[in-house]
C-alpha cells in the first residue's frame, strides 16, 4: 500500500498495463515529454518512448479515429482528450464509430479504447474547461462511461477498462486529481458496472458520482451527528450503471437523493432518478430528489461558479427534504 493521488494512481495503472501488454499505447496532446496537462502520463514517455506515448496535433477527431482504427486490429489504445469539453469535436467518432462498430458489423470488429479525459468544474476554468459531460453520452448504446472518485478505484477501474473489450469514456474529475488515498502497488482490477457503497446507512440513499461522492460523504458525516444515517453509493460506472446495488439500497432505506455535478435537465441524475421511481415505486416514502448543477454554462468567476455547481450543503438540504 502506498499513499497516492488519483493522478499517481492512474499513472501507475497505465504503467502496469504498458509494461505487461505491448498492445497498450497512449496518444494525445502533450502527453509525452510534458506528461499531460495534469501530469497523468508523466514519466511514461521516458520509459516507453515516442511510439507508445504519442504526442498529437490538436486533431481530436483524428485522435479518437486513430485509436478506434488501431483497436480494430488488435491494439489497446488509450487516447487522451485534454479537457472533456473538447469531446464535442470528436463526438461523431465516439458515438457513430467507436460505440456502433461492434453492433453494426455484427461482432466482426471490436473497439476497445479507453478515452481518458479531465472533466468537471470548480477551478475557475470558465465555460469551455469546466463542464461535466457524461450527460452528452448517456443516451449512446455501446458506450461505457467510467468515473472514479478515489485513488484506489481510479487505478483498479483503469486496469479493468483497458482489459475490457468495449469503448470506454474514462472521466477524471479535475477537482479530485489531488485527492490522496491508499493504493495497492501491485496489479488489481476493480469491476466495471459495479457501484461501491462508500458509506452504509439506513435512512436515505444518496447515489453520487465523482466529486459529488465526496460532497455526499461530507454531508453524511455531518448529518450523522444529527442522528441521520445516510448510505452513499458511488456509481463508478455511469453507463450502464449498477441498478441492482442502487435499487437494493433504496428498497432498504425507502428514500433517495441523486447527486451529480452537471445540469439537472437531461443529465445522468435524470436516468437514475427515473429508474428508481419506476422500479422501487412501492418502497419509496418520499420523491427522489436530484442535486445537480443549475441549467447554465459554467461562468469564469469563481464566486459565480460556486452558485452554479452543487455542493455538500445542497446534498444535506435534499436529504432533509426527503426525510421531512
Amino acid at each position: 500500500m502506498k499513499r497516492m493521488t488519483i493522478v499517481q494512481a492512474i499513472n501507475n495503472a497505465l504503467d502496469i498495463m504498458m509494461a505487461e501488454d505491448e498492445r497498450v499505447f497512449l496518444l494525445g496532446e502533450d502527453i509525452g515529454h510534458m506528461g499531460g496537462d495534469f501530469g497523468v502520463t508523466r514519466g511514461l514517455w521516458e520509459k516507453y518512448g515516442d511510439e507508445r506515448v504519442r504526442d498529437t496535433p490538436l486533431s481530436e477527431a483524428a485522435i479518437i479515429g486513430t485509436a478506434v482504427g488501431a483497436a480494430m486490429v488488435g491494439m489497446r489504445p488509450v487516447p487522451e482528450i485534454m479537457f472533456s469539453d473538447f469531446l464535442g469535436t470528436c463526438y461523431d467518432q465516439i458515438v457513430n464509430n467507436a460505440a456502433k462498430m461492434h453492433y453494426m458489423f455484427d461482432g466482426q470488429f471490436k473497439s476497445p479504447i479507453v478515452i481518458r479525459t479531465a472533466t468537471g468544474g470548480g477551478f475557475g476554468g470558465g465555460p469551455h474547461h469546466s463542464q461535466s459531460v457524461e450527460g452528452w453520452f448517456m443516451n449512446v448504446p455501446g458506450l461505457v462511461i467510467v468515473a472514479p472518485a478515489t485513488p484506489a478505484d481510479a487505478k483498479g477501474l483503469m486496469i479493468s477498462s483497458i482489459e475490457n473489450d468495449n469503448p470506454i469514456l474514462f472521466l477524471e474529475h479535475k477537482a479530485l486529481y489531488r485527492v490522496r488515498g491508499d493504493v495497492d502497488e501491485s496489479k488489481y482490477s476493480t469491476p466495471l458496472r459495479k457501484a461501491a457503497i462508500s458509506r452504509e446507512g439506513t435512512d436515505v440513499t444518496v447515489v453520487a458520482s465523482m466529486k459529488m461522492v465526496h460532497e455526499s460523504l461530507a454531508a453524511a458525516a455531518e448529518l450523522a451527528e444529527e442522528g441521520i444515517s445516510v448510505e452513499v453509493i458511488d456509481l463508478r460506472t455511469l453507463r450502464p450503471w449498477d441498478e441492482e446495488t442502487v435499487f437494493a439500497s433504496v428498497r432498504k432505506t425507502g428514500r433517495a437523493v441523486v447527486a451529480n455535478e452537471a445540469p439537472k435537465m437531461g443529465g445522468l441524475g435524470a436516468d437514475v432518478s427515473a429508474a428508481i421511481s419506476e422500479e422501487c415505486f412501492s418502497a419509496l416514502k418520499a420523491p427522489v430528489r436530484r442535486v445537480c448543477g443549475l441549467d447554465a454554462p459554467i461562468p469564469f468567476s469563481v464566486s459565480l461558479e460556486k452558485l452554479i455547481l452543487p455542493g455538500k450543503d445542497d446534498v444535506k438540504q435534499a436529504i432533509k427534504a426527503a426525510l421531512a
Partner: protein
Amino acid sequence: MDVLLDLYRDMWVVRAFELGLEREFKKGNVPGMLHTGLGQEAVQAAIAQSLRHTDAFFPDHRCHGLLVLAGTPGEKIMAELFGKATGVCSGKGGSLHSADPSVGNFGDNAVEGSMMATALGVALAYKMQKRDDLAAVIVGDGTSGRGEWHESLNLAATWKLPVLYCCVNNGYAISTAVGKAHATENLYEFACAYKMPSIQVDGNDIVAAHKATEEAVDHIRKGNGPFFIEYKTWRWQGIFSGEFRPDDEVHYWREEHEPIKLAQQHLISSGIADAAQLEQIKAEVEAQVEDWITFAKDSPAPDPAKATSNVYVGWEIAAR
C-alpha cells in the same frame, strides 16, 4: 492470363452487380437507400487488384462491387444489401456497412469522411506491428469538405503512415458540383499542402488507373508513407436516379468515355482478347450475379435475437 482481362471481368462484376441490385431496388426488394458504383467500374477494379487480403480497406457507399472483388462471396454481400440473415453482417449493416475482415474489408462509415481518421489507426497499428500492409480509404470528392480530411492527411503525412487515399472524383456530391463547394476542382492538389505524393488519373481508363494504383501501393509498401490518388470519373446515378447534369457531359461519360467500352476497345485493339471472349466474360458474370440475387431473395430474415446481440462485447442489454 493478362491482368487486363482479369480487370475486365472485375469491371463487369461491378457493373452487373449494380445493375442487378438497382433492378431489385426498383422492385422494392432492397430496403433503405441505394448508391451504385455504375460508371466507376475501372476505379473499383483497379483498387481491388492492387490490394491483398492482409491490407485493410475502407470502402465508400458505392463500393458494392469492390467488396466482392476483394474476395467476399458475392451472395454474402448481396444478401447483406437485402438485409438478410446470410449477409456478411447478418443484415445489421446493409449497403453502407458491409464489412468482412477476412478479406481486409473494414466497412463503410456512412458519416462520410469519418473513416479517414479510422484508417490512420489501422495504418499506425500495422506500422507498430511491423507489418508491411497498408490501409486504403476510398472517399468521394464531396467528402473532401470534411474536417477529418485535413486531420487525416496531416497526420498520415506527419507520421509517414501506410495510407492509400483513393479519392473518387466523380464531379458531384449529390447535386453539388466539386467546383461549387471546393477551392479547387483538382482534389489531388489538396494533398500537396501536406507534401504528400499525389497524382490525378483518368479513372475511366483501366490501364491508367491500374498503373497509378500499383505505383502508389508500391511506394507505400516500401515504407515511404502515404500516397494520394485522385481518380477522375463519373457516376451514372444522378440525384436519386434523376438526371440534372448537362447533356453533353452525360453523353461524354456514358458514351464516349465509358470505362467498359474503353477497356473493350483496348483489349481488342491490342489483341489481348476478341469480342466473343469479352461477351462470354460478361455473360458469365451476369449469370453469377443472378445467382447471388436469387440467394439473397431466398435467404431468411435475420434471427430476431440479432436485434439485441453485440451491442456490448460480453454484456447483454435490457429487454423491453
